């Protein structure tokens, strides 16, 4: 793949289970591609510099900041946004838990929080350590300390952290193997 400056080129992105083709300049971020080109404004632009986590999406099951990703780099990858969690209109368990626990006030950080929480639970269950995990072995229980450390990449300026924490704990317990 080679794109010259000021040239638009068709690329294809696999988003929420659907192959989408879009004409882009190489400088287009994945975040702007989702919001402005693919009609998926659920993913939010907060700081646009990788500091707030509002733009978090899942790529091949791993959470990333879509604002620091160039769309062109993510061809052939499986991208899931907040819109992909409830394709038939039935809320995902994590979305339902955020409602039940008041896991938001203004709601702007929520799509990023939810995608991040799902990526986090995958990481935790795959034995990925965090800064508070004991050096040897794995954490077997998602303690508050583990949850807070692992979700620190998502800021909520309303301060709904307690509800967010409770929502994630609930989904974690409900999906225990």
């Amino acid at each position, binding site marked *: 793949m080679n*794109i010259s400056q000021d040239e638009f080129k068709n690329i294809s992105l696999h988003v929420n289970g659907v192959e989408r083709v879009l004409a882009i300049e190489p400088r287009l971020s994945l975040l702007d591609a989702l919001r402005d080109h693919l009609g998926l404004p659920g993913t939010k632009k907060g700081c646009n*510099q990788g500091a707030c986590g509002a733009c978090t999406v899942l790529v091949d099951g791993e*959470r990333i*900041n879509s604002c620091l990703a160039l769309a*062109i780099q993510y061809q052939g990858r499986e991208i899931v946004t907040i819109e992909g969690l409830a394709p038939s209109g039935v809320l995902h368990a994590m979305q339902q838990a955020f409602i039940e626990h008041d896991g938001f006030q203004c709601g702007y950080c929520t799509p990023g929080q939810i995608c991040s929480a799902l990526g986090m639970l995958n990481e935790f269950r795959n034995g990925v*350590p965090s800064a508070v995990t004991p*050096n040897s072995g794995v954490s077997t229980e998602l303690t508050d300390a583990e949850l*807070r*450390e692992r979700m*620190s990449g998502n800021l909520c300026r309303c301060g709904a952290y307690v509800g967010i924490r409770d929502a994630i704990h609930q989904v974690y317990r409900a999906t225990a193997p």
Partner: protein
Amino acid sequence: MNNFTYSTATDTRSALKLFSESPDRKARFLAGGTNLIDLMREGIEQPRSLVDITRVPLAEVQELPGGDLRVGAMVRNSHLAAHALVREKYPLLSQAILMGASAQLRNMATTGGNLMQRTRCYYFYDGAAACNKRVPGSGCDAIEGFNRIHAILGTSPKCIATHPSDMCVALAALDANVNITGPSGDRRLAFTDFHRLPGDTPEIDTNLQPGELITSVDLPASSSGLPSAYRKVRDRASYAFALVSVAAALKVEDGIIREVRLALGGVSHKPWRASVAEDLLRGKAPTPDNFARAAAAELAPAIPRRGNTFKVELGKRTIALVLSDLAAVQGAER
């Protein structure tokens, strides 16, 4: 963000070729993008071409015949921190990585890219400020400005920026080596020779030459299994850059320090290997007095500024605390 030509490399050879074909031979290699894309959006970096190296097959962690561990340049930070061999042999590295950035960023950022991070100095990021690193010869607004986060060791009158990485502080303590390929062949640099002090040319962060590419980082077998710890002091408990960080390994036998490795983050333009303190401690008893004396000697040449005088004492205390803890877990402190 200015526009640019984008091309993808499939192996190191094509990466070097694409660089050499770039219009001004100033292409930048793009990996995780967590720092470069941000700098480009802010207009601090304005490359006319990017060579995407994320498909270059350098994402393996492999044990070498001699026992060293080779970490490919494209290994993601999160994968490296979670790797079973790293956690078993070099827990210091795993800890340091996990204390940096956020989970999202660690899922994107690569080993090579972590080494190539640029400073988080506010004045470097502010196009309206004087910054010798951004515009050589323009001055340094940090020296008389808000410099709470800035360097105290190895500074120059031109620049007091710090290197922001946690991972690199551990690599400096572990005697890692950096493998590089380039137009004139392959070479290898000791990790502590990779980054530079600012001197008269703060615009040059590393000793990597134009067109050269990091291929891997080697962790020596001799650093494997040492009792070690990474301690990071910062303004909040998670997801913040270090004010001061300490990477330490300490081996005590028969009441004597047999091996000590010490590196500091948040205090210098490069990960600061504390060899003055190490030399004072090797062969000595692991006592609080000896730790405090060694820490004081390491920090003696510090030049603090108005906003960061606290870093001198913080550095001394953090060094002494980490070493004391490592001695205590070996039942060696008396």
